[in-house]
């Protein structure tokens, strides 16, 4: 019994890890295809059918390039930087519930790697650690552009984490729990007689707007990609990196996008719940599997949205970035918390 449980847990962890890496790999391909389509081009189509082997070709290219360490760089930290970025990026998908429960042989198996009752805090802690990878790598390169990129990344992440945390507090007032599994399960309740449509987006639209803006900033994506702003800083924090060190940084960015998309889908867009999920009269396991498929569809939509925005909007100027973060998003998120709290009190008074 105990052994089989461990085995199942190990299998789920392995699957989550593999899926995370696979999606990140094909995000690089999707990014290039989306960019090409938006710019009226066709994108990579030479390697394999529809260019599907392109990520493999890119990886092979990166592996065969010279692993170059600058003469005056701190060698240990120079290698530790990208490793840390990749490590933290891969850790945060552990607490995301990728589905409900599968009932096999009378045992309920949760499709989630680890259940912790502080799931959201765990994700925030790991995402906040991610900036260390950028910071250490940028500092260890002994290059002024790298250092400037690293400083930008650090100050940007600190500024936007505040607003992000505030928007989450408003969400927690609604849900009353920090556990990702409970939040996902709550959203499966009925709303206007439709089961599985009790999504938090309907209660926290402003919170979601703040959250998605901050998610863009946290993952260093356009329009907040100032740490690697190539027009000003050559390549930003990865200026000195070559070969797979560079590859790990780029890869970590895509893993972060996947995790941010998964968190947004779970917290605000109902996670694995879909409309009419309990009213169709389908068997329990089938509903769970469909729910997982629906969750991945939501995640893919958000990944696509990240790319869509990247090829639409220009980059912020640094003072505009700071103005948006400190003068607009933080007051807005505080107001959101107060209004949400007031609304909950009012609801308790009236009903």
């Amino acid at each position: 019994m105990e052994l089989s449980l461990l085995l199942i847990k190990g299998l789920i962890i392995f699957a989550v890890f593999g899926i995370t890496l696979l999606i990140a790999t094909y995000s690089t391909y999707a990014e290039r295809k989306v960019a090409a389509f938006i710019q009226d081009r066709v994108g990579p189509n030479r390697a394999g059918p529809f260019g599907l082997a392109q990520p493999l070709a890119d990886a092979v290219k990166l592996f065969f390039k010279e692993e170059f360490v600058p003469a005056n760089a701190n060698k240990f930290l120079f290698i530790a930087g990208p490793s840390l970025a990749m490590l933290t990026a891969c850790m945060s998908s552990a607490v995301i519930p990728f589905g409900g429960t599968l009932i096999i042989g009378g045992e309920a198996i949760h499709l989630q790697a680890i259940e912790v009752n502080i799931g959201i805090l765990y994700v925030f802690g790991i995402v906040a650690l991610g900036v260390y990878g950028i910071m250490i790598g940028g500092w260890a390169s002994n290059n002024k552009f790298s250092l400037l990129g690293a400083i930008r990344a650090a100050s940007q992440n600190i500024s936007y984490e505040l607003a992000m945390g505030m928007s989450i507090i408003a969400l927690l007032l609604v849900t009353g729990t920090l556990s990702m599994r409970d939040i996902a399960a709550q959203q499966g309740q009925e709303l206007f007689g439709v089961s599985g449509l009790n999504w938090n987006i309907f209660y926290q639209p402003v919170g979601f707007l703040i959250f998605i803006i901050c998610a863009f900033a946290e993952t260093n994506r356009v329009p907040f990609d100032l740490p690697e702003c190539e027009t000003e800083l050559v390549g930003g924090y990865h200026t000195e990196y070559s070969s797979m060190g560079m590859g790990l940084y780029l890869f970590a960015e895509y893993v972060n996008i996947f995790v941010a998309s998964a968190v947004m889908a779970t917290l605000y867009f109902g996670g694995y719940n879909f409309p009419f999920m309990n009213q169709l009269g389908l068997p329990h396991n089938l509903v769970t599997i469909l729910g997982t498929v629906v969750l991945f569809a939501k995640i893919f939509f958000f990944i696509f949205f990240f790319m869509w925005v990247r090829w639409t909007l220009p980059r912020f100027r640094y003072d505009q970035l700071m103005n948006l973060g400190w003068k607009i998003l933080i007051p807005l998120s505080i107001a959101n918390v107060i209004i949400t709290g007031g609304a909950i009190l009012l609801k308790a008074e009236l009903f």
Partner: protein
Amino acid sequence: MQSLSNRAKKLEKKPMNFSERMYLPAIFQGLSITMRHFFKKKATIKYPEETRPMSAVWRGLHVLKRDEKGRERCTACGLCAVACPAEAITMVAGERKRGEEHLYREEKYAISYEINMLRCIFCGLCEEACPKAAIFLQNDKVAPARYERDEFIYGKDRLVEPMPIQNQ
């Protein structure tokens, strides 16, 4: 200042209203523009698999024609070389020997005939100058890219039209 055409529109800089300061409507407008481009038909021609149709008067790679009996038409008169503005054509003339009547149409023929495709500007003046209708620019072939410069000097082996099958 007086405008010359009186078509200039007078613009005044108004302070932005609330929806403009929120930037969100403008962002969604931009997103819808990029989404329209996402589904647009792409103009790209995937070259090795697809080719653009060539015009009937396209001037491409040269060919030295044979007559209806399979004899080379070129008599090495040199008019094409004289007409060539890029001086891409060189040739060496020779006299036809007894027993070679089935190979060369006239008593004089080109022992060697070379066109430097890097010099050639594909103007077609050689075609116009030729009194024997021997040289033509094909409308379905182009000089392909190569790695070495000397591979662009096309001799008779690559210029002369292959023998028609029934005469071999």
